[in-house]
């Protein structure tokens, strides 16, 4: 901090009017396509993510209807295959990753005390890419041409000979296209976290949620490119007759290696942000500093690294050398260490406190229960002999739903209840929230716990039906009925979301007495996020502000254009002011151009070239400096 003179920051309504004018997003239908503010884009990611969650959930219910009785004919085999494939693609690509990014995009800049992301237009571009990709996938389902090869699309089943339709072409191109969105968001989040923290928020004062998003973003940067490479290879195999995965010439196992080199970190990409949410919620509802901040940060980072060393445990039954199998067994068991450290830190944080059992905390406690069970079955399948026994059975289905729903969806719903007041200015109903939690919690366990048993009985995954004499009918019927209960539980939360928009109790700035900066501004935040950028003196800035009479802030950032403060990487020392771009339609046009390139490849080889040219035009339009002369004048003044 340069000067410590106690100048009272003088506020004027004129100044606020100017700020609102400069940062506001254009209204109206056409204005909608030009929004770039992080609050706007983040909200879109979150809403779209939940829409896909509901669609994926409906697909799951259709599967459970089909499996409710033996030899059922509700869905035909091909449609069933399309549905379970789309369920996986939806939940992994269109729901879990984008919604975590959505929360990050909305919350992180507020938590850092800045006014927007580093590259607002790129942010908007990422959203349109996501929207176009998701719409294209569902279009293929409604046309009855969805991929029917599982969300992992193993060749040779996925090659042109064995899957002649367009389904896998959709998969290969749309998945590649979709990952652009994830990569864009990851780079942006990293840069925003590195360079735009409020002055004084050195790395060791960053909230744990910010740390978790940083780790997630780095994992995306290294995990998604191999997926893009391998799905492009698959597309080339199918369209121009390349031989990457042709048995005998290429190698189908190459796909599995590249896919799981992405696919396993993917699980942690979903799970790590959830860990950050848990820490935020625990701090707020116990109203005291977290136990073992450093240990938690190190565990997050360790999870990020070890997550890349596990991919082969998806391939134990493909015939690997023993040494490799041993190595990956050890690595897979090792991941339990950072997870364990975190669970114990959280337990220690809760120990001896009298937490407020509001809905967000209930979801976190639900997480503990479910995730520990998922972790235990994870330790079981990490060993080769056990895995060989239960490979491709419902035991695995049970295991990864315990890990993914318990590890990511429960904290996510906790996060939804926790941050909803910040997004909308109103609190969600506690009564309905608690009802929703208990329905979801009980429904979840009744649905998925019996699947362990079905798996040990030998019921294979991905079958559209089973024979009556096998005796799996009763348990399957029970599971199907329970899945209805689970669906009602989730539905209750969505009803709560809509009801509370109008009827919820007004939240005020900080309804939970939380510690981090996002609660230090209005709910919902004004378009410029903060009137003054706050200065941070510790890990729990709002609690420290409460103790002091006056809040230290930064003044002198211009209000007559979009401007924000850039700070240094380690210590968040103020370095410069940066001018931010305003609303524009170019991101949408670029997303369409790239979409034509990728989507058109399904139909003809010329489209990538067309897409390349259109993208170039769009990029030039995007970056071409407007009003050269005016900018030059500003320069000289």
């Amino acid at each position, binding site marked *: 901090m340069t000067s410590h003179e106690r100048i009272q920051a003088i506020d004027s309504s004129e100044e606020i009017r100017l700020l609102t004018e400069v940062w506001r997003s254009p209204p109206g239908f056409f204005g909608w396509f030009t929004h770039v503010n992080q609050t706007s884009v983040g909200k879109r990611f979150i809403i779209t993510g939940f829409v896909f969650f509901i669609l994926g959930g409906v697909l799951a219910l259709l599967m459970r209807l089909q499996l409710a009785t033996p030899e059922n004919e509700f869905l035909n085999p091909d449609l069933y295959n399309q549905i379970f494939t789309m369920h996986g693609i939806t939940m992994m690509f269109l729901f879990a990753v984008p919604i975590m990014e959505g929360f990050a995009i909305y919350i992180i800049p507020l938590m850092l005390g800045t006014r927007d992301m580093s590259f607002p237009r790129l942010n908007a571009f990422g959203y349109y890419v996501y929207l176009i990709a998701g719409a294209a996938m569902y279009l293929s389902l409604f046309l009855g041409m969805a991929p029917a090869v599982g969300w992992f699309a193993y060749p040779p089943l996925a090659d042109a000979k064995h899957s002649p339709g367009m389904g896998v072409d959709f998969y290969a191109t749309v998945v590649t296209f979709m990952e652009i969105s994830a*990569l864009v968001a990851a780079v942006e989040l990293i840069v925003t976290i590195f*360079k735009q923290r409020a002055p004084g928020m050195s790395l060791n004062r960053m909230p744990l949620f910010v740390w978790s998003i940083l780790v997630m973003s780095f994992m995306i940067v290294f995990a998604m490119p191999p997926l893009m490479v391998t799905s492009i290879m698959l597309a080339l195999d199918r369209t121009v007759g390349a031989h990457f995965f042709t048995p005998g010439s290429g190698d189908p196992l*190459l796909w599995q290696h590249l896919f799981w080199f992405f696919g396993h970190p993917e699980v942690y990409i979903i799970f790590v942000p959830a860990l950050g949410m848990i820490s935020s919620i625990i701090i707020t509802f116990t109203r005291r500093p977290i136990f073992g901040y450093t240990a938690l940060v190190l565990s997050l980072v360790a999870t990020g690294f070890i997550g890349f060393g596990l991919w082969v445990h998806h391939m134990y039954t493909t015939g690997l050398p023993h040494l490799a199998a041993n190595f990956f067994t050890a690595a897979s068991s090792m991941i339990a260490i950072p997870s364990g450290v975190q669970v114990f830190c959280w337990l220690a944080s809760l120990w001896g406190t009298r937490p407020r059992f509001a809905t967000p905390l209930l979801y976190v406690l639900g997480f503990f229960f479910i995730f520990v069970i998922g972790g235990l079955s994870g330790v079981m399948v990490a060993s080769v002999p056990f895995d060989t026994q239960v490979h491709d059975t419902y035991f695995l289905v049970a295991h990864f739903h315990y890990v993914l729903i318990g590890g990511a969806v429960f904290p996510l719903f906790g996060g939804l209840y926790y941050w909803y007041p910040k997004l909308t200015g109103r609190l969600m109903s506690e009564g309905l929230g608690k009802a929703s939690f208990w329905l979801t919690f009980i429904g979840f366990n009744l649905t998925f716990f019996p699947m362990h048993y079905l798996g040990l009985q030998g019921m294979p995954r991905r079958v559209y039906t089973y024979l009556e004499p096998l005796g799996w009918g009763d348990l399957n019927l029970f599971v199907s009925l329970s899945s209805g209960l689970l669906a009602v539980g989730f539905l209750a939360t969505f009803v709560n979301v809509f009801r509370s928009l109008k009827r919820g109790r007004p939240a005020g700035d900080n309804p939970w007495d939380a510690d981090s900066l996002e609660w230090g501004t209005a709910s919902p935040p004004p378009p410029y996020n903060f009137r003054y950028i706050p200065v941070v003196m510790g890990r729990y800035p709002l609690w420290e502000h409460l103790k002091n009479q006056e809040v230290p802030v930064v003044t002198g950032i211009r209000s007559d254009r979009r401007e924000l403060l850039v700070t240094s990487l380690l210590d968040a020392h103020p*370095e410069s002011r940066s001018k931010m771009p305003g609303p524009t339609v170019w991101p949408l046009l670029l997303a369409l151009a790239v979409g034509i390139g990728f989507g058109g490849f399904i139909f003809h080889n010329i489209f990538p070239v067309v897409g390349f040219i259109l993208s170039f035009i769009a990029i030039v339009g995007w970056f071409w400096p407007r009003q050269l002369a005016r900018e030059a004048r500003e320069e000289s003044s």
Partner: protein
Amino acid sequence: MNGTFSVLDASKLPSHAFEHRSPLWWGIIGLIVIEATVFASLVASFFYLRSNFPQWPPDGTRSPELLKPTLATLVLLASAIPMYWADSSLKQGKTFPLKVGPLISIALALVFLAMKVVEYRDIGFRWDTHAYGSVVWTIVGFHSAHVLALVLKTAVVTTLAWRNYFNRKRRIGVTVNGLYWYFVVIIWIPLYMTIYWASYFLSN
């Protein structure tokens, strides 16, 4: 909130940042890391596929010729020099090199692309001949697309330079364009080592 008091007057801070102080610089580093991971995946695939074949390049495909690809590589490496000259001159406020340097770089990059076209026109195998063909054509094609994008991008930067858009303060656009140019040039070295030298030695 309680009252506020100012501890920092940001109006005294500069409104331009350079190199690692600029968010844009970090953004382009992010792009470079992503692309490097893409190329690393391709190189790993090259060696993985190799383990399926008793001979590499496979039977019926001769091992690659080394002279012309090496010359092309030198041309591409040389293209980075005028770019560096333009970038570092602009730091000292000299704008003339920025009008000429990138043009030389573009010309050299186009020569490189032309040499690749000639080379692969009669290389003797196609992407659908065998897995070796698939991976080599993909690596070369993907990298060439990068060179082409680089040429187009630099053409835009040069146009702006001729319209006197850049100066000592406003040069982050030139810096990141240069960074990306160096990246595409440098990443070619491991790719070149893989598809030419590794193929050459593995075949003997």
